[in-house]
């Protein structure tokens, strides 16, 4: 009897280990693919990046010295395979090169912009879940009820609203007409100290966070809604109600758990969407984060920064999806089988 349980447990652990190994093994070619795609980005422009730098359309003239440096940096005169191996070697050493704009290491510029983006995206992620989950649970609790239908219409309209348009409208209304919130920036100049300083920063955060949040509400609310609606009809929720749990308890403690798993698995894929949104939102609100750094680097053809940030975005998403998959498998043993 005891031996049997132990055997079962051991095979469960083996299964988990096998799952983890398989998942990581699948991530290795993906990681390699990301590095290849980023490498190809710099070779996109007809001819070479160096020629694109000086092209008339780009509207920017780049000195011959910078062009020569670029050719040297990427070894553009060498054959493609050799270039690729060199690029691989630099990535492996986390050497992203120097920014063309201010000669500082790319990693340093990324590190400077990271906190602003983390604050923005962290808050956006928090509010997305904090708003979408209760809506999804309430809607799934009574499918096709008035709240379900009403919330679906509102979320659908929000989903269809272009973020740059929404940003301009709220800026016009709340900042220009009513004067409640600052138009852009991280803080007032000069920034007030102490508690007023904190309030000032929050006021500056309010609109960018809102703009980064509203678009993804529909997706997550719908995900939670379908999980809850599906579980609601099942015996374990009926049983919970029969045991005397309130409707609210039955929905949150039992039905919502059913929706939690797909939610966790998809969290990793939220990251690229947030970073995409950051580019637009940070540009409109003059927010000094990664999105703005990326956009500025695109405009100034600062290839090392563009490549570094693309690589970072891809690898971070891969890591996040991997972590989400592993977390889901830890919670639900059934997932370990399909891998």
């Amino acid at each position, binding site marked *: 009897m005891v031996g049997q349980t132990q055997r079962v447990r051991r095979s469960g652990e083996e299964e988990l280990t096998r799952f983890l190994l398989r998942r990581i093994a*699948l991530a290795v*070619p*993906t990681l390699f*693919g*990301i590095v*290849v*795609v980023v490498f190809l*980005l710099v070779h*996109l*422009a*007809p001819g070479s*990046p160096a020629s*694109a730098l000086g*092209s008339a*359309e780009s509207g920017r003239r780049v000195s011959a010295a910078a062009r020569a440096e670029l050719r040297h940096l990427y070894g553009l005169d060498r054959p493609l395979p050799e270039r690729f191996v060199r690029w691989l070697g630099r990535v492996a050493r986390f050497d992203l090169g120097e920014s063309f704009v201010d000669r500082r290491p790319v990693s340093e510029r990324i590190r400077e912009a990271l906190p602003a983006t983390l604050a923005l995206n962290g808050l956006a992620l928090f509010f997305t879940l904090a708003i979408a989950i209760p809506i999804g649970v309430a809607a799934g609790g009574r499918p096709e009820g008035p709240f379900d239908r009403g919330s679906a219409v509102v979320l*659908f*309209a929000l*989903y*269809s*609203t*272009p973020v*740059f*348009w929404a940003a*301009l*409208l709220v*800026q*016009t209304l709340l900042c*220009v*007409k009513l004067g409640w919130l600052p*138009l852009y920036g991280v803080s007032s100049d000069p920034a007030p100290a102490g508690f007023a300083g904190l309030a000032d920063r929050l006021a500056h955060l309010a609109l960018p966070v809102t703009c980064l949040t509203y678009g993804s509400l529909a997706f997550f609310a719908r995900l939670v809604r379908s999980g809850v609606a599906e579980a609601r009809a099942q015996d374990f929720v009926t049983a919970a109600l029969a045991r005397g749990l309130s409707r609210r308890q039955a929905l949150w403690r039992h039905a919502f758990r059913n929706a939690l798993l797909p939610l966790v698995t998809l969290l990793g*894929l939220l*990251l*690229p*969407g947030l*970073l*995409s*949104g950051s*580019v*637009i939102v940070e*540009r*409109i609100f003059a927010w000094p984060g990664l999105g703005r750094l*990326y*956009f500025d680097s*695109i*405009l100034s053809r600062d290839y090392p920064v*563009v490549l570094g*940030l*693309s690589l970072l*975005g*891809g*690898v971070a*998403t*891969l890591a996040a*999806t991997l972590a989400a998959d592993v977390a889901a498998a830890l919670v639900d043993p059934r997932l370990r089988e399909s891998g």
Partner: protein
Amino acid sequence: MIRRLPASGRVALSVVALLWLVAAISPLFAGRASEIRLEDRLRAPSLAHPFGTDDLGRDLAARVVVATPISLTIGLVAAAVSLSVGFGIGGAAGYFGGATDLLLSRLIEVVLCFPVLFLLLALAAFLPPSPTTVVLAIGLTTWPSDARYARAEILKAKSLDYARAAKAAGASPMRILVRHLLPNALAPLLVSAAFGVSWAILAEAALSFLGVGLPAPAASWGGILSSAPAYIEEAWWLALFPGLALFATVSAYNLLAESLRRATTEAGGK
């Protein structure tokens, strides 16, 4: 198919038809849209200028109308590129399975890992600016979601009885694909197409808003919107009306896609 659409879907379809109608008659407004009258710059909406005028005194309503075919066409063509690439790669992965599937699925996963706008901006900015560049940039960055969808649909269809029956009857893989699987993939294809168009219109608008979309003088709704931030303190209409056109178009296509999906899944369930 239209008969099966719910009421919301018919409304969406009418709006889409109306937009294409506006696009068709838009050349009539071309003259008015490009007429620069500096003495009339930044006028608020009035009877003479229902949407007001822009920073060069051009009539904003005419500009929004003239931008309609640009946004709609780019959205349609870019979505077609994305769908062809996506359904080709995803369909092949699902149909052939095995090593092909493993390889193509990695490829899909790789592209999905990048923030779409990162790739989109890089492609649009590094390639010479032209409508072709915009279409290709959008098509080549948004196909992975189409591919994932196509792969799942083909996998599902392959396991259905009619496909297995055709195989048992000795039909060649090509015949099964063309005669049996493709006709049944039509509904998901239409749903993807409608979502794809709305996505592509948004992507083009975002690129043009950021200033790396269509080269001047062609102006899409996103392009008109790009001048709005500079005048945000004085001319709210510059932001409101082009965005409203964009919002109406994107919601109509989204609603159409949603209704198509509902119509086809409900029909399939019965």
